[in-house]
């Protein structure tokens, strides 16, 4: 039982897994197919450089603990990464079999298999206590990875999280057919078991502001992610049928009161992965008609084609390119979404639900409250890419707040990089 209870009757609990756990026969067969490349391209393509051929070989020899250990040595969030990583464009895209016109090794699914069967509670042993403490703001993947790595080096990390559940977007933002909040909480429990303290429901500010945190801890890590959903800035978007995508997904994943029963026609606005995920989720929820509206053309979309392509095979989903939402009008039933381009209004689409997935606000003003921390003109915290140190030598940052919104695996890499640099800093201070 997790320390963080979640409602049983969440809508996401009804979602079937897109890629179920492999059976041992399947896993062994795929492991046997892996060529065990030397200096393998898949490793080079993994942001956390997991030794993929070695863990797959361990699966083949039925050394599942060894396989899990190999993964965790490179990536403490190996379980969520196995399930949410876009392996189609990362490790698996470079599998040498692709050059032979043969199917790539299903690296993500094998990694999940290794984590599911090979994880043991006492698998990683923290170093003896250093007496140093590090404060981490936000309990998303970047902070979890950073805190876990710091705990293993003997430091005492404390994560401050505003939300009810730790995990950040791993808790409230991942498509339910990939990874559910309960899966996330299992992974969080593993990170906690390394010696990480997590305080949820804590707002930074007031009595617990930047100065106080800097006084309480030897170093800080800002894994604050992104802010609320961006708004369209058009007339009529305050109508109750119009919602932000991350807000909507969060309710799908955590709110027992979430319903789409009355939604027969949905419009999703945006071209990124959140927009594509939202469209796919609406289809799974049984919505009869989903329009994906994007201001440019399909080749310009940042949403992965391996996610969009299969969704478009469902005739209920239509992609409307090269248009913007101009206005949202009240209608007898639901709303009318007016679409247009620079030449004017082109079409009106009736909808019961409009999900806006055009990105999230930056928390740059918030970040700049920490002395020495600076942001670029796009609101991203500026860091040294090797150490993740900000302009304040005791303050580090990583994840979406730094890269503007990338994959979980990039956040993990940032967190682990920062942990190495923080460890070096603390040892330096200790030695001085």
């Amino acid at each position, binding site marked *: 039982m997790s320390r963080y209870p979640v409602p049983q009757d969440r809508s996401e609990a009804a979602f079937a897994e897109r890629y179920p756990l492999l059976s041992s026969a399947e896993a062994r067969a795929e492991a*046997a197919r892996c*060529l065990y490349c*030397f200096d393998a391209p898949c490793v080079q393509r993994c942001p956390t450089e997991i030794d993929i051929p070695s863990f797959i070989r361990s699966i083949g020899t039925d050394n599942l603990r060894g396989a899990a250990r190999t993964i965790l040595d490179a990536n403490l969030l190996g379980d969520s990464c196995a399930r949410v990583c876009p392996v189609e464009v990362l490790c698996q895209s470079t599998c*040498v*079999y692709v050059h032979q016109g043969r199917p790539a090794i299903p690296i993500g699914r094998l990694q999940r298999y290794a984590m599911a069967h090979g994880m043991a509670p006492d698998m990683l042993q923290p170093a003896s206590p250093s007496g140093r403490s590090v404060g981490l703001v936000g309990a998303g993947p970047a902070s979890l990875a950073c805190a876990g790595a710091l705990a293993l080096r003997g430091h005492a990390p404390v994560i401050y999280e505003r939300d009810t559940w730790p995990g950040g977007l791993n808790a409230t933002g991942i498509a339910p057919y990939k990874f559910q909040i309960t899966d996330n909480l299992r992974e969080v429990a593993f990170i906690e078991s390394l010696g990480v303290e997590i305080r949820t429901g804590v707002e930074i500010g007031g009595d617990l502001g930047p100065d106080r945190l800097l006084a309480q801890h030897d170093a800080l890590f800002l894994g604050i992610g992104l802010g609320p959903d961006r708004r369209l800035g058009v007339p009529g978007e305050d109508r109750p049928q119009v919602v932000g995508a991350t807000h909507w997904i969060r309710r799908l994943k955590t709110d027992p009161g979430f319903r789409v029963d009355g939604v027969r026609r949905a419009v999703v606005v945006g071209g990124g992965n959140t927009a594509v995920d939202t469209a796919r989720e609406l289809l799974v929820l049984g919505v009869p008609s989903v329009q994906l509206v994007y201001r440019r053309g399909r080749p310009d979309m940042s949403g992965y084609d391996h996610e969009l392509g299969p969704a478009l095979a469902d005739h209920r989903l239509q992609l409307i390119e090269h248009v913007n939402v101009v206005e949202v009008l009240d209608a007898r039933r639901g709303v009318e979404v007016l679409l247009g381009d620079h030449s004017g209004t082109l079409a009106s689409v009736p909808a019961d639900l409009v999900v806006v997935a055009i990105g999230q606000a930056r928390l740059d003003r918030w970040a700049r409250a920490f002395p020495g921390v600076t942001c670029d003109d796009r609101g991203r915290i500026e860091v040294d890419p090797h150490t993740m140190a900000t302009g304040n030598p005791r303050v580090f940052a990583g994840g979406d707040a730094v890269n503007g919104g990338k994959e979980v695996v990039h956040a993990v890499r940032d967190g682990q990089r920062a942990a190495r640099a923080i460890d070096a800093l603390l040892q330096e201070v200790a030695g001085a």
Partner: protein
Amino acid sequence: MPDLAVDFAGIRSPNPFWLASAPPTNSGDQVMRAFDAGWGGAVWKTLGNPIVNVSSRLASVDYGTWRMMGLNNIELITDRPLADNLREIAAVKRRHPSHALVVSLMFETRQEWRDIIRRVEDTGADGLELNFGCPHGMCERGMGSAVGQEPAVLEELVRWVMEVASVPVIAKLTPNVTDVRDPARAAVRGGIDALSLINTVQSVIGVDLDRMVPLPSVGDASSHGGYCGPAVKPIALRMVADLARDGAVPVPISGIGGIATWRDAAEFLALGAHTVQVCTAVMHHGFRIVVDLIDGLDRYLCDKGLHSVEQLVGAAVPAYRDWGELDLNFHTVAAIDSARCIGCNLCHVACHDGAHQCIHLPSEPQGAVRVPYVDEPECVGCNLCALVCPVEGCITMVERRRGAARESWNDRVAAGRDRVPGGLGEL
């Protein structure tokens, strides 16, 4: 159409594919179904004085996704009454007069051999196979490989049999000897008509690491068994070839050991076998595999312009030589086809860690992949890279002769040029 029919020491068979003496030839029902499926001959499961078997008799080595690359058994000879066996042998022979039906035998006393041979010949069987090979169980009682490992005893038993037998007699040899030519020559001295080999190799297939009992475990213990299947084919090929080129063994050979495909069979034939016997592949996939065995061999003979199996028999034996006769001026180097390379770098790591450090990785990819390159002067032509490469035709060994003339080590010895620098004398 090539002629697949063979005459093996007077035993006629519609094709060279026989079932070896083993579980697939344990009953008349099985052998009849095998003949119906297309098998040319069968060697009946060994007859002997009644025995009892243990339960849990087989265990295997799996490799990757391939099951039963090697199979180990601790089963003994037939555990059915002799009368049942003899009745069924006669019935098979009546139903299949043109197929080759050979009966495997294992007895102890001269009188027992005389009695069983008379009984078996009464069934109409085409020949006898003397089981001097079984390497487990029966050898503890002085039979099977216990005979095959003692040339003098083997010769004596062959004499006993040849005194009374009127059908062709084959001696089946064990590979569990230092030099298989010794028992083969003893059998020839005893007057044998033909030889078959190899019987199984003594083996312990594995250990149950939880219970600390070897496999196959018979409750709380196990015993060594006989190893067969694709894993033993190279051992068998070598022994068949050793006999095929031995002038002191001028009798036909039936090749046995890991044959699963027509290609395996063709290799045995090329190294001097006149027929082949199959067991493990049938235990794995059933009698039906004979269809492709026949079809594949038929097409191969056609493609090579050969008109009979006989023309293939021994075709590679002249090229099977002692090391000292090999050409030292023959030299090859590896060539990597960058258009086919998929960038797995297995050739590089194999060469660097396991061979001669002559395949290197470039720092940058050429096109989509990073193609390793060969330092030709350092390449000894060992073939390892071509063996580990997973892409057909990507690495080829290109001939770069070191001299026009052929020169072997034996030639050098004969010419007094056999001193190689770097020895003890220079220390």
